[in-house]
C-alpha cells in the first residue's frame, strides 16, 4: 500500500488529491487567500482527516502550481506544465493538447503519446485570457461567474470587446451596460474575448486532437463553448477539471518513490 498526495497551489485556490496505489482516495479544495502557507496546511489536515488517513502514513507529497514553494512539507515540486500533462494523460490518454486556464495564468501544453510534455506556451503576465478577467467582468455585470457562464449560452447576437486589458475591458463592459445591451450578449462577448486570447497562445505550440481543457475555467460551459468556436476544434473536459494539476502531482509522487 502506498499513499501519496498531490497539492496544487494556484493563484486563487489550493487543490489536494490523496491517492492510494494510484486510485483516488480523497480530494479537497479551498481558496488560497493571502496567507498561503496557513491555507495549505489547514486544507491538508482536513483532507487527510476526511479520508481517514494519518499524516505519518503519507509516503510522499508533491507540490505544483505558481505558489508550490509555499508547501513547506512537500518532498518534491514539479512544474505546472508537467503536473497538467500527467493529470490529463491519466484521465484522457488520447489527449495531445492540454489547455489549462486558471485564475491568473493560461497554459497550452503539447503532449506526447505517453503523457510527456513536448512543448508549452504560457501567459502569466497579463489578466487577459485568465479566470480573473471573467471575474472582473462578472463584477461589472453584477452576476456571479456561474450565472455568467450560463447566460453566455443564451446570447443571440455577437458583439466584440476590443480591449485586451482587463482594466480597460471593464470600462467597455460598463459602457455596454449603459447602452442597455442584454447581459447574455455581454457575457458571450467576454467569453469570446478570452477564448480569442487563449487561441493565440495555443497557436504558438499548435493544436492537435484531442484537445483537453482543465483548470477552473473548464467548469465554465459558456467559455468552453466559445473556445471550441474560436479554435474550431472539439474540446474535451474531464470531470473535476480544476483538480487535474493536483492529480498530476499525485501521479508524479506515485511514480517516483
Amino acid at each position, binding site marked *: 500500500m502506498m499513499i501519496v498526495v498531490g497539492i496544487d497551489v494556484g493563484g486563487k485556490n489550493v487543490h489536494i488529491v490523496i491517492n492510494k496505489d494510484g486510485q483516488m482516495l480523497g480530494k479537497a479544495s479551498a481558496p488560497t487567500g493571502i496567507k498561503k502557507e496557513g491555507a495549505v496546511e489547514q486544507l491538508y489536515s482536513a483532507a487527510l482527516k476526511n479520508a481517514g488517513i494519518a499524516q505519518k502514513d503519507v509516503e510522499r507529497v508533491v507540490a505544483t502550481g505558481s505558489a508550490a514553494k509555499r508547501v513547506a512539507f512537500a518532498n518534491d515540486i514539479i512544474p505546472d506544465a508537467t503536473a497538467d500533462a500527467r493529470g490529463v494523460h491519466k484521465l484522457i490518454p488520447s489527449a495531445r493538447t492540454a489547455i489549462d486556464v486558471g485564475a491568473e495564468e493560461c497554459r497550452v501544453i503539447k503532449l506526447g503519446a505517453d503523457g510527456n510534455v513536448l512543448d508549452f506556451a504560457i501567459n502569466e503576465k497579463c489578466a487577459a485570457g485568465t479566470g480573473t478577467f471573467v471575474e*472582473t467582468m462578472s463584477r461589472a455585470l453584477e452576476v456571479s461567474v456561474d450565472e455568467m457562464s450560463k447566460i453566455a449560452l443564451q446570447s443571440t447576437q455577437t458583439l466584440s470587446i476590443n480591449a485586451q486589458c482587463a482594466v480597460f475591458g471593464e470600462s467597455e463592459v460598463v459602457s455596454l451596460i449603459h447602452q442597455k445591451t442584454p447581459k447574455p450578449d455581454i457575457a458571450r462577448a467576454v467569453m469570446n474575448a478570452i477564448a480569442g486570447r487563449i487561441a493565440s497562445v495555443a497557436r504558438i505550440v499548435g493544436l492537435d486532437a484531442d484537445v483537453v481543457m482543465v483548470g477552473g475555467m473548464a467548469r465554465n460551459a459558456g467559455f468552453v463553448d466559445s473556445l471550441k468556436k474560436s479554435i474550431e476544434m472539439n474540446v474535451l473536459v474531464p470531470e473535476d477539471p480544476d483538480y487535474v494539476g493536483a492529480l498530476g502531482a499525485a501521479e508524479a509522487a506515485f511514480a517516483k518513490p
Partner: protein
Amino acid sequence: MTEEVKPKALRKESVLEGKAKALEIEGENMAGEAKTREFWRWPETNWVNPDIEWKKGEMITAGVDVGSVSTQAVVMVDGEFFAYGNMRTGSDSPDSARKGMDFALEKTDLKIENIDYCVGTGYGRVNVPIAQQSVTEISCHARGANFMYGPEVRTVMDMGGQDCKAINVDDQGKVVNFIMNDKCAAGTGRGMEVFAELIRVPVWEIGTRSFKIQKEPPMISSTCVVFAKSEVVGLLESGLPENDIMAAYCSAMAHRIMELLNRLGVKEKFAITGGIAKNEGVVKRLEKELRTKTAARIWSKKEYVDRGYPFDTQLAGGIGAALFGQALLKMSKAKSARKA
C-alpha cells in the same frame, strides 16, 4: 408642497450623517466613510486669464481634448493662453466636450458663439460637436508641449488616462516619431487610479507620500494592474507600510514607462505631459531610471511665469489643439465659424 417634503427627506439623511460623523469621531465608522470617498477623483479646475480682454482679440480659437478619463477645453486669444477647464470625462463624448467648454468659459463672458475656430482632439475627438476640425492627440500634445515647455523640447511623454505615448518632436513642435501603449493599463493614469482606490489614498497624494519611506522597496513585480492589485493586497497584509507600497507601485510604473521610452529613444529636453506628470513619485523615479532630467514644470514664456498663470500638464493636448486652430485660420485654410 414639494419643498416641504424635501427638507424632511434631507433631514432624515442628515440625522444619519450626523450619526455617522459622531461614530467617525470615535473612530468606529472609518469604513463607512471610506466607502463613499472616491480616491481616484482628482480635483477639477478652471481658470481665466485676467490680463486679456478677449473682445480686443482678432482670433479666438479653442481646443477640446476629450480623453478617456479627463476632458480639457482651452481657449486662446491670438495664440495667448486665455481660459481653460479641466474635468472628468463622462460616459458620453459630445456631452463631456460641451461640459468641458462650459466649465472653461464659466468665469468669463465669452460665449461659444464668439469662438472663431475650435479643434477637437483626444480619444473622443471625432465626437466633439462644437469643433470644426479634429487633430490627433499625438500632434496636439507635441504642439502643446512645445508651447508650454519651449521649442528646445525634443521628447514628449504624454501619460494619459488610458494610454501612454512617447513622441519625438522638432523645434516647431512637429511630430518626428512616436510610440504608444494603448493596450494595457499598466503605466497609465487609469492604473494609478485603480491603485489609489485599492489603497484608499487620494490619487494626488500618492507621489509625495511615496518618498516618506526609510528605504526604497523593491518594485511591484506584476506588470498587469489586475495582478498588481493582488500583489498589493498581499503586501498590505504582510504589514509593509502604506507609503512603501506606494513607492513600490510608483517604481513599477516608472519602470514600465521607461521600457516604452527606451524603444523610442529619449532626447533632451524631455518633457512630460498628462496627469501622471503631476505625480512626483513616478516622475522622479523615471528620471533616475533614465538618468535624464525632465523639464521643470513651468512655462517657457517668462511673462506667464511672472504673472503666475497656472501650469497644468493635462492641458498640453487642448493648448496644442487651440494652436492648430489658430494656424489653420492664419493660413486661410479655414474660415471663422464665429456667430457673434
